[in-house]
């Protein structure tokens, strides 16, 4: 009896020792040398593995960054400047600061504004629906409402608003990884700079149809009338293919375009006060009147000059 126990303990101990030696040897023999900075960078990164940077996860990002030795083609939109600075410190290089971005849904064709013309029945996927036909409204550019963007978001920042049938971005959760923009077959979602204190101005429509048919399809469509372009004093608005676009780099957030838009397709968000359309319109009118006066005066002056030179 005692013998059995002794033998058992002995055999197990020897076996354990031998096996651990083998493991030790294997671990040494097949050890892969890896730059410790990869681990370090990976730890610094948010670890969501969202792919927003264009790499297949945070590890791949770190790997590429260490291999390249700089951060020219690496930027983690989720972590933002703060995290990128830390990464740059680890690598001992510099990183360009980039403005924080946010996903913006450029369709405001709510159920009311954009009446349904048929009923879609099939897989609830925007991709499937877009491949099938123009959609269940007369607007073939607008949101299809099946929520591919919501499914693509790894951060729970998107949700469908049942009242409007449109996706809503939760800015506090959005990391601007760009997954939703890529998932949208209609390319409605755009990544735009968040703007100072979140304030930004954008055209919430990408309908390229001519004015009348765009209007027929959706009451709040951009009809490409060009009023915004004419009103903007900063050259931030351009109309191409019957649809306006606001360049965030040039926009000074004066909200004049928003005030003159006849269909309400231009949206301003996170402004402290609601837009007083009449006041802004008056401001524009005053400025125009002043400009006209000035032009008149200038013309008069020109006349005088001409006369003087003639005389």
């Amino acid at each position, binding site marked *: 009896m005692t013998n059995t126990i002794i033998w058992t303990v002995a055999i197990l101990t020897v076996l354990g020792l031998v096996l651990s030696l083998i493991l030790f040897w294997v671990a040494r023999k097949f050890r892969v040398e890896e730059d410790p900075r990869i681990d370090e960078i990976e730890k610094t990164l948010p670890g969501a593995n969202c792919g927003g940077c264009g790499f297949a996860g945070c590890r791949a990002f770190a790997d590429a960054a260490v291999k390249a030795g700089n951060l020219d083609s690496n930027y983690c939109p989720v972590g933002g400047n703060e995290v990128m600075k830390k990464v740059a410190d680890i690598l001992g290089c510099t990183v360009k600061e980039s403005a924080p971005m946010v996903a913006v849904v450029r369709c405001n064709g709510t159920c009311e504004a954009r009446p349904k*013309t*048929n009923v879609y*029945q*099939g*897989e609830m*996927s925007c*991709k*499937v629906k877009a*491949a*099938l*036909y*123009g*959609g*269940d409204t*007369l607007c*073939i550019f607008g949101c299809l409402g099946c929520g591919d963007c919501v499914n693509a978001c790894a951060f729970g920042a998107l949700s469908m608003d049942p009242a409007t049938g449109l996706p809503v971005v939760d800015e506090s959760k959005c990391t601007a990884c760009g997954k939703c923009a890529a998932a949208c077959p209609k390319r409605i979602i755009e990544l735009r700079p968040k703007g100072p204190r979140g304030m930004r101005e954008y055209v919430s429509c990408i309908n390229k*149809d001519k004015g009348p048919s765009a209007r027929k399809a959706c009451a709040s469509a951009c009809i490409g009338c060009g009023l915004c372009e004419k009103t903007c004093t900063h050259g931030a608005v351009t109309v191409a293919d019957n649809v306006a676009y606001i360049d965030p780099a040039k926009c000074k957030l004066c909200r004049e375009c928003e005030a003159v838009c006849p269909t309400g397709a231009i949206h301003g968000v996170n402004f402290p006060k609601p837009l007083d359309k009449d006041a802004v319109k008056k401001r524009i009118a005053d400025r125009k009147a002043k400009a006209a006066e000035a032009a008149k005066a200038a013309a008069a002056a020109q006349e005088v000059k001409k006369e003087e030179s003639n005389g």
Partner: protein
Amino acid sequence: MAKLTFSIGGIHPADSKLARDCKIETLPLPPKVYVSMFQHLGAMAKPIVAVGDSVKAGQIIAEPGGFISAYVHSPVSGKVTAIGPRKDLAGFNQMHVEIEVQGDEWADGIDLSPDLVTAIPEDKQFILDRIKMCGVVGLGGATFPTHVKLNPPPGKTAECLILNGAECEPFLTSDYRILLERTDEIVVGAAIMQKVLGGCPCVIGIEENKPGAIAAVKASVARLAYPGIRVETLKKRYPQGGEKQLIDAVMHRQVRSGGLPIDVGAVVQNVATSLAVYEAVQKNKPLVTNTLTVTGDVIDPARQHNYLFRIGMPLSYIAEYAGGIPEGTVKIVSGGPMMGKAIANMDAATVKGSSSILYLGDATKRHAATPCISCGRCADACPMGLEPFLLKRLYSAGDVAALEQNAAQDCIECGCCQYSCPAYVPLLDNIRMAKAQVMGVIRARNAKK
């Protein structure tokens, strides 16, 4: 004689050929027609007329926009009133030429007499040119330009011309009616195509549920006595009329994945295409008319019709003429119920390949999908031997490499899987996307090479 059929999968939906006994009627001309520039597979045709031009029926109004493309002719005589985008039946904008109908005058050189011309031109190139200049495209559904298909690439020879009279889709009867009413012309068309392909034998395949057509074609083949044409009876089974399935059924050969029918020596043409070829070559008449069935499970037999229509007539005009959209219609389909497209816009114009206006009632409503119970019916039904349940799963997982390995790109979109799924899983909806994804990967890889 043994009935032929394909070897893998397939389903047996009720054939519902409700309009089978309705003679083909000719539709009167509408006030305006809208001729699409995108009626064929390949590049869009380029309009060569201008607003204000007067055109005659049969006159070329658009040129091919590429090698795989086709001429488009005016289906009516009148004045071009607009050229620009117009919504097609899916609601997408397509370039259309709008023509206001004035009288019914045909361009010179077109033989409109009903006399049968049986003498076949000797010159192959002449025949091919005629087919090309008359804008003939495959009318079996894919609308692939016929002159391209009848001109095999060098090094490949046609061993068998298969004339597809299967019409395996439920409800459709237009092919059946032309097989009955225009039998001789179709047989002459077949003989013309045989000639172009170097005198290979021709098999006219017709499904067993059309005994009248089989008898009529057999009699005509015997009477006209062209060499090497025979009629084969096919089993009633969907998708018997699929190109790959028909080749399997008639020649017992299978086209390799990614290959063309000509690789196994087969050229498949629809019977309606054969009729168009006859008219083009023997009568110099361009493809501006076709036959279309107005049918459905919500209309009574008296209102079922087969019409000879001019291309460019709006669907709504034909529907109106046939008595309006019937009560209880849930969905209107252009084409058969298995592969046809649901119509979102009834104002859309008919195109060369239009084959039906199909009114479907409650039976077409989709049920909510329930979990897959792994019954394997989709795999049993797939005529390509794919495993739809697996493809759907792989697509949801985004595994493109595995999709390619499991042959998602071989899907012919026949709908057998989704038809037979007892859990109402939208299999084809997903597999179609998976196929597109894999095809994109394959194309990108080939481009790199």
